């Protein structure tokens, strides 16, 4: 499809001008072979007092403005003015935004600081200068948009946009008579002189900008651009979407405000004393371990309990304590090294004591109540006992 489009463009580009030309002369055009010839010719034409003429070259020629007697270019004033406007508006804008409207502390700097504003000021200065220069050249000096000049799609235009240099004196110049101009051209070394006639449409439509098609196209583009950018910008900046999707239905999110309850909170905390299903409150939370010795292990030792305990121990405890509880876990320096679980202290502890450490944590070791269920904790304790026994068993305890 893109290829088709490109072909279309190419076809349009190379198509000859089919619009009929009128009998009315627009001007006389001459073609030259070298840049020096055209500069001399322009100087002669300007010297003879012609005013309504222009020179067409494939690239800018140094010295042409002098030869044509154009005087000093005034575009510089426009550029300078807009440059200044850019500088001032950037400083005002930053001063207003950063200093007054939305002051923010950034890195302990003053709200409005010159050094950090300079890059933006510079950019805006250059931007406005550039835009003013380009648009000024096009609109003020080249009188654009004037898209249907009678010169377009002529052989003359083809030549001067590749490798020839041309000049056109228009018939509306007071001094214009066909013979004098033609002689003037030939005397300055033109190798070809051509008559350029107006198109029919040039005579009927004065200003193409006011043509219905043109205005329609402009308005259409403007409307489409406005609508599309309205929705996109709203979506990007403020998350406002043109349509509601199902996930956008009205609801109260957690942590948000609601007028439904008298306390205006969208979330209701549970009634005091509520106990979650499958959860038993731990009465000794935060207490020293001396007070919890009374708790006894509710699980009976069995193969499945020990296997469960080993499984949980390897997952939750071994990273720090090591697979055999010797305090040589894989954390290796990332976390304080725990003491061995085979110490006299832990071996002589009651099960309730170990249960307390798992549930409550101890110093840097955090509580594992959230990760390990109550029964699993007791299973782990059975497993720790088995580990201890495996290291410290006495001769007479071994099965005969």
């Amino acid at each position: 499809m893109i290829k088709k489009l490109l072909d279309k463009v190419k076809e349009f580009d190379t198509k000859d001008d089919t619009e009929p030309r009128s009998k009315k002369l627009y001007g006389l055009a001459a073609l030259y072979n070298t840049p020096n010839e055209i500069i001399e010719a322009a100087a002669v034409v300007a010297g003879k007092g012609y005013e309504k003429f222009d020179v067409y070259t494939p690239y800018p020629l140094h010295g042409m403005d002098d030869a044509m007697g154009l005087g000093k270019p005034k575009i510089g004033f426009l550029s300078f003015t807009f440059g200044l406007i850019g500088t001032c508006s950037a400083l005002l804008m930053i001063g207003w935004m950063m200093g007054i409207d939305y002051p923010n502390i950034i890195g302990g700097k003053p709200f409005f600081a010159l050094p950090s504003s300079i890059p933006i000021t510079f950019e805006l200065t250059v931007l406005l200068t550039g835009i003013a220069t380009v648009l000024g050249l096009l609109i003020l000096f080249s009188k654009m948009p004037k898209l249907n000049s009678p010169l377009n799609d002529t052989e003359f235009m083809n030549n001067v946009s590749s490798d020839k240099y041309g000049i056109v004196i228009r018939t509306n110049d007071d001094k214009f008579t066909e013979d004098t101009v033609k002689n003037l051209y030939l005397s300055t070394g033109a190798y070809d002189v051509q008559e350029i006639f107006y198109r029919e449409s040039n005579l009927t439509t004065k200003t193409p900008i006011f043509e219905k098609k043109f205005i329609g196209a402009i308005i259409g583009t403007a409307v489409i651009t406005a609508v599309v950018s309205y929705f996109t910008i709203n979506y990007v900046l403020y998350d406002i979407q043109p349509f509601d999707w199902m996930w956008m239905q009205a609801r109260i999110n957690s942590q948000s405000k609601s007028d439904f309850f008298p306390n205006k909170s969208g979330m209701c905390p549970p009634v005091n004393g509520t106990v979650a299903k499958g959860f038993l409150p731990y009465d000794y939370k935060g207490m020293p371990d001396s007070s919890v010795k009374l708790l006894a292990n509710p699980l009976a030792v069995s193969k499945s309990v020990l296997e469960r305990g080993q499984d949980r121990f390897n997952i939750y405890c071994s990273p720090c304590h090591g697979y055999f509880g010797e305090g040589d876990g894989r954390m290796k320096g990332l976390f304080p090294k725990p003491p061995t679980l085979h110490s006299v202290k832990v071996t002589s502890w009651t099960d309730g004591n170990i249960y307390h450490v798992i549930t409550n944590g101890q110093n840097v070791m955090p509580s594992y109540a959230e990760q390990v269920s109550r029964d699993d904790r007791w299973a782990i304790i059975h497993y720790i006992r088995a580990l201890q026994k495996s290291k410290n068993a006495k001769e007479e305890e071994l099965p005969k």
Partner: protein
Amino acid sequence: MDYQKKPLPAKLGKIGFALLGIGLLSMIASFAVNSHRAFFDYLWMYMFLVSIGVGSLALVALEYLVGATWSTPFRRVSEFLASIIPLLVVLTIPLLLFGMHDLYHWTHPEALATDPILQAKEPYLNISFFTIRIAIYLLIWVGFFYLFIRNSQKQDITRDPALTKQSIKFSAAFAILFVVTIAFASMDWMMSLEYHWYSTMFGVYYFAGTLLSAFAAATFCSVKLNENGYLDKKLGNNNYYSFGTLMFGFNIFWAYIAFSQYMLIWYADIPEETFWVMMRMKGSWSYFSIGLVFIHFVLPFLILLPRSSKVNPKLLSVMSIWILVAHAYDLYWIIMPTYFTEGFAFGWSELGALMFAAGLIITVFKYRADRTNLIPVGDPKLEQGLNFHLN
């Protein structure tokens, strides 16, 4: 082309000699009075000569490299200015032999013994490696100076275009070496005055200054010579315009680099970087620093902005001297706060150093100009350069 050499007035040589003599005497006196201060003045003067000399050689190389024609008739001017380079060797000796202790605190053994930062930098910042580096820079500059000058002189007689081709090859090599050596030279000579401080933009900063001052010096000499009829009648606004534009452009480049360096330090706000700026904000230095912004950038920018000022020979010669003064001002701003810690001062010993530099440039220029054509008559691009048209 029919070039008739017109010798430069003898008065010029006398002025140069007088300046050189007075400058030398005042510098000797200054060493007797206060050698510490005298060495800072000396370094200041030395760096100014490096900017003009090595920068001018870079302009010569640049012209070969990009094949510029507009500047070919003026190339001799930059060659004459670059003739300072061999003298730099002589001027370096007092600095290396006697000046290191006065100028560079990092050469003090007691500083090295107590300062861990300096200890870390010691493998680079030590006197023997420093001397080797300076010798390498000088070797490169002097070597290329002789290559370029030899080819250019020979071409006046043989008119052999192959010499231009060879010089283009030299230029390609020198372009790279110039950037590297000038950046490292600036770090060694000037950044190490405050050896705790570092800025990765410092090399570019000095690079911008050298090229700018070399352009300014070339502009001044070319415009003056040509206006007084020493070069060629065909030369004029078309060529001046390029001088004006390049001076203007490089001034903006300098400002861009200077501001970038300042803004990064300001933004990051790290003590080991900000102290260098704070030294230049202390006491009367703060006025000096603000002066730098206006003298070096704002005023020349506004004055050189209109197109008409770039084709006005009078204004151009004034502005090129202005830029040279601004460059000296800039170097003073970089070097002197290490000595004048409380506020800046400008006395007869600084003036003497400046006069010495000016006298040296004029004398060398006159000396070379008396022995050579003022225009490279054998250069194949010369004809194009003489007929160069801009507007």
